[in-house]
C-alpha cells in the first residue's frame, strides 16, 4: 500500500476572532509527496507551513480541498485515526509520564500487549540512542534528549506519514546539525513518507528529497534542492534561497537555447529557459559564480566597495556600473583581502546565469 501524501487544492481561511480580519493562511496548495520520500516545506514565518502540516495531521479542517494518503481520501478522518505522527516544535512530551510511558503511549492506545510493548519501546530507545533513560521524566532530560524522545514516540507506532514542525528550532546550532543528520538517517532507513516544516534553508537543503517553497500561503516552487538553488522560478525563491545579485534586464533576442539579454552593464547570452524577446527579466548572478581578476582583466571593471571577512571565505561588494555586486571568494590561505577602493576585474561564465521573470517592480 502506498503511503504517498497528496494534497489537492488545499485552502485554509481563519475567520478573524473578536474583530480581527480573516486570514488566508493556505491558498490553493497542491502537492504530491512520494512514498518514502522526505519533503520539506520551506518559507518565512507565517507563510502557512504549519497550517499545511496540521491539515495533514487532521488538527485543522481545510476550508477547501482534500488530503489523501495513498488512494484514501482522509480529509474527513479524525486526527486520531489518520496514523500520522507529528514531532512538535515544543516536542509536546507528556510531562507527567516517564520516557518509557511517553514512547509507549501510542502502542498502549493500540492495545499492544505489555511484553511486546516493552520490547518495542526499549528497542526504539536503542535506535534513538537513549537506552537507560526510560524511567526519567521529560523534565530530567536535556533538549536534545527530549527531541529524541519525541522522535521515538512518533516513530514507534509505525505511522504512515511522519510530520515534523520545526523540530530542531529549540536546539543550539551544533546539536541542530547533528540531529538533522540523524533524522535523515532514520527516515531513509525506515523509508517513512515525511513532511518536514522549517524556515532554515540549510536544514531544508541537507534533509530533503524535495523542497517546497511557500510564500503567503501559496506554493512558489517545488523541486530538488539543486533545482531550487540553481533554477529558482521566482524572484522570491531566488532571494529566499542563498544570496544573489539581481540585475534588471530585457530579452532582446532568442537564439537557440540562449537568450540575448540587455542590462545596464551591457549584453549577456544566458540559457533562455523559455523566455521570449521583449520579456522583462531578472538576471540571477550567484556570488559564488563570480570571480575577481586584476584590474583590466575580465568581463566588467569595478572597484571594491566593502569587504566582509568570514574566515573560510570573503564577501566583497564590488561597484560595477553604478550597482553593487556581491562576490564570494573562497579565501586563499595567506592572501590578504583586497581593500576598499581597489580596482578589480569581474569574471563569470554566462552559462551559469539564470533568468527569472520580472514584473513591473524591482
Amino acid at each position, binding site marked *: 500500500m502506498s503511503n504517498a501524501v497528496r494534497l489537492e487544492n488545499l485552502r485554509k481561511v481563519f475567520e478573524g476572532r473578536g474583530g480581527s480580519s480573516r486570514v488566508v493562511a493556505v491558498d490553493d496548495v497542491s502537492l504530491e509527496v512520494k512514498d518514502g520520500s522526505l519533503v520539506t516545506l520551506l518559507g518565512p514565518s507565517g507563510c502557512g507551513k504549519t497550517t499545511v502540516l496540521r491539515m495533514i*495531521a487532521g*488538527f485543522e479542517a481545510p476550508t477547501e480541498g482534500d488530503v489523501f494518503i495513498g488512494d484514501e481520501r482522509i480529509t474527513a478522518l479524525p486526527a*486520531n485515526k489518520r496514523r500520522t505522527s507529528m514531532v*512538535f516544535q515544543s516536542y*509536546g512530551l507528556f510531562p507527567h509520564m516517564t520516557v518509557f510511558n511517553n514512547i509507549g503511549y501510542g502502542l498502549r*492506545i493500540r492495545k499492544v500487549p505489555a511484553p511486546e510493548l516493552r520490547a518495542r519501546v526499549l528497542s526504539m530507545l536503542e535506535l534513538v540512542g537513549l537506552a537507560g533513560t526510560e524511567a526519567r*521524566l521529560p523534565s530530567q532530560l536535556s533538549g536534545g534528549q*527530549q527531541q529524541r524522545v519525541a522522535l521515538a514516540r*512518533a516513530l514507534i507506532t509505525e505511522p504512515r506519514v511522519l510530520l515534523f514542525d520545526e523540530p530542531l528550532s529549540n536546539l543550539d546550532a551544533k546539536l541542530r546539525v547533528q540531529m538533522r543528520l540523524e533524522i535523515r538517517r532514520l527516515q531513509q532507513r525506515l523509508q517513512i513518507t515525511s513532511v518536514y516544516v522549517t524556515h532554515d534553508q540549510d536544514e531544508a537543503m541537507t534533509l530533503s528529497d524535495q523542497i517546497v517553497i511557500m510564500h503567503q500561503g501559496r506554493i512558489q516552487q517545488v523541486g530538488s534542492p539543486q533545482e531550487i538553488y540553481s533554477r529558482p522560478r521566482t524572484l522570491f525563491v531566488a532571494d529566499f534561497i542563498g544570496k544573489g545579485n539581481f540585475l534588471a534586464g530585457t530579452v532582446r533576442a532568442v537564439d537557440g537555447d540562449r537568450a540575448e539579454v540587455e542590462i545596464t552593464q551591457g549584453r549577456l547570452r544566458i540559457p533562455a529557459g523559455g523566455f521570449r524577446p521583449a520579456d522583462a527579466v531578472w538576471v540571477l548572478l550567484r556570488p559564488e559564480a563570480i570571480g575577481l581578476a586584476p584590474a583590466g582583466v575580465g568581463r566588467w571593471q569595478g572597484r571594491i566597495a566593502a569587504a566582509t571577512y568570514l574566515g573560510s571565505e570573503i564577501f566583497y561588494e564590488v561597484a560595477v556600473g553604478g550597482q553593487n555586486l556581491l562576490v564570494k571568494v573562497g579565501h586563499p590561505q595567506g592572501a590578504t583581502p583586497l581593500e576598499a577602493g581597489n580596482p578589480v576585474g569581474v569574471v563569470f561564465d554566462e552559462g551559469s546565469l539564470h533568468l527569472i521573470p520580472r514584473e513591473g517592480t524591482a
Partner: protein
Amino acid sequence: MNELRKILREPVLAAAIGVIAVSLFLFVIYPLFKVFQMSVVEDGRFTLHVYRDLLDKPFERRPIYNSLILGALVAVAGTAVGYLFAFAIARADVPWKRFFRLIATFPIISPPFVLSLAAILLLGRKGFITRMLFQGQWDPHIYGLRGLVLVETIAFFPTAFLIMLGILQAIDPALEESSLNLGATRWQVFRTVTLPLSVPGLASSLLVLFVESLADFGNPIILSGNFHVLSVQAYLHITGMVDFGGGAALAVILLFPTLAAFLLQKYWVSRKSYVTVTGKPSPARLSVDPFTRRLLFVLCLGVTGLILLLYGTVIFGSFVTLWGANYTLTIKHYASVFHIGGRYLRDTLILASVATPITGILGMVIAFLVVRKQFVGKGLMDLTSMLTFAVPGTVVGIGYILAFNERPLLLTGTAAIIVLLFIFRNVPVGIRAGVAALQQIDPAIEEAATNLGAGSARTFVTITLPLITPAFFSGLAYGFVRCMTAISAVIFVVSGRWNLITIAILGLVENADMSQAAAFSMVLIAIVLLVLGLIQVGVGRVATSQMGYEAAG
C-alpha cells in the same frame, strides 16, 4: 460548518457539548428567565405595573440607593485595603509577609455573616468594645451602613488583594528600575509607573467588590437594622409577603448593576491590561524607603489585628455561657452543635460532598472545551457558565424556586435542587482554575496524544486531566468552601428534608443566640479548614508524583 462536522465525528465530544449546553440552559438561563418573566407577566399578559408599583413607593426605592451606596463604599474601601496589602507584600518587602498573606485571605473561607456576628459582639450596644472602652457612653451604630461597610470591607478585601497581588507581581521590576534609573524618586516611580500599571487591576477589583457587596445577603440580613438593601428586601418580599412579582422585580433591579459591572469587567477592563499575566511572578527587587516600609507594615498590622480581633471575639463568644449576661466559660454550646445541629452538619456535608466533585469535573470539562475546542456557541457557553458567578445568589435562588416548582421540573424540597444550585453556582470557580491551568499547558502535548491515536475523551482523561489535577483540586477546595458557606441562594430552596448549617446559624443570630451561633460558626470553619488541609495533602502528593511539568513546555 466545517467545525460542526468535525465535532460530529467525535461522538463523546458532541455528547459532552450537548449535555453541558442543555444543563446550562436549564439551570442557569431558564431560572433567570423565570425571574424576569415573573416580574413582567401577569395573567399571561405583559405589564410593567409591578415595577411601577415598586418604584412609586419611596420605601421600596430606598433599598436601591442603599445597595448602590453600600456597594460603592465597600468597593472603594476594600480595594484600598487590598491594594495596601498587595503593595506591601509584592513591592515593599515588609516583614511577616507570609503571615499577612494568610490573614488577608482567611475571610474568603469563612462564612460571610461570621463577621457581622463578630461586629455585634464587639461593637453592638452591649458589645465588648462599646462597654469596655466607652463604658456604654457611645453607641457605634453598627446596625446599618457603618457596620455593613466595616464587615463587608473585611469580608471582601481578600478578593481585591488577590487581584492586585497578581497584577503587581506581573509588573516587570525592570520597568520600575529603569524609571528609577532615569532619575525618578521612589514616589515618582510609584506615581508614574507602578500605579498606572495597576489601574486595570484596580478597576477590576472595584467592579468585583461592588458586585460582591450588592450580592451579599448574610451580612445585611443580620446587620442592616433599618438600612434596607435589595438582596434582603427581595428575600422578604418572597418569603415574608408571598409577593413573587415584587420579589422577582427587585431581583431584576438587583441584577442590572451587578451584570453591568460584570460585563464591564469581563469585556472592557480585562482588555485594558498592559500586564501579560502569563509571565512568571517576578521577585520584588525594588524596595521602598524604610519609612514607607514601616508605615505599610504598621497599616497591615492594624488591619490584621482587626481581623484577628473579629475572629477572636467569635471564638471567645462561643465559650461564653450567656452573652451579655453571664460570661462564665462553658463548652455547652459545642455540645449542642452536635446535639441540635447534628442533622444540619450531616446534611450540609452530604450535599457539599455530592456537589463538589461534580462541580469540579464539570468545571474542568467546560474549561477544556472552551480553551481547546472549536464549536458553534462556544462563546455563549463560556459566558453562560460564568454568569452564575455574577448573578447575585438572591436572584438565582428566586429563579430556582420559580423554575423548579412544577412538573416536569419538580425539584422543590429535594436534595437535587440544592445540589444543582451548588453545582451551577460554583462551577465558574472550577472553570477559572481549569482555564488558567490549561493555558499553561502547551497544546502540542494534547495534539501529540491525538496524533498517536487517542480520541478526545481519551486525551482528556490520560493527558489533560492529570496535568490539570492541581488546578482541579484547588477548584474543588474552593467549591467546597463555597458550598459550606453558601446562604443567599440556598435559603430559598432548603426544605425539611435537607437543612444547611449556615441557615441554622442565621436563625440563631436572628434570635440573638450569639454564643450558640458562634459555636456553630467555629465548627463550620473548622470543618472547612480540615477539608482544605486534606485536599492540600492530596494535591501535595499528586504534585510530587508528577514533579515539574513546566520544564517540558
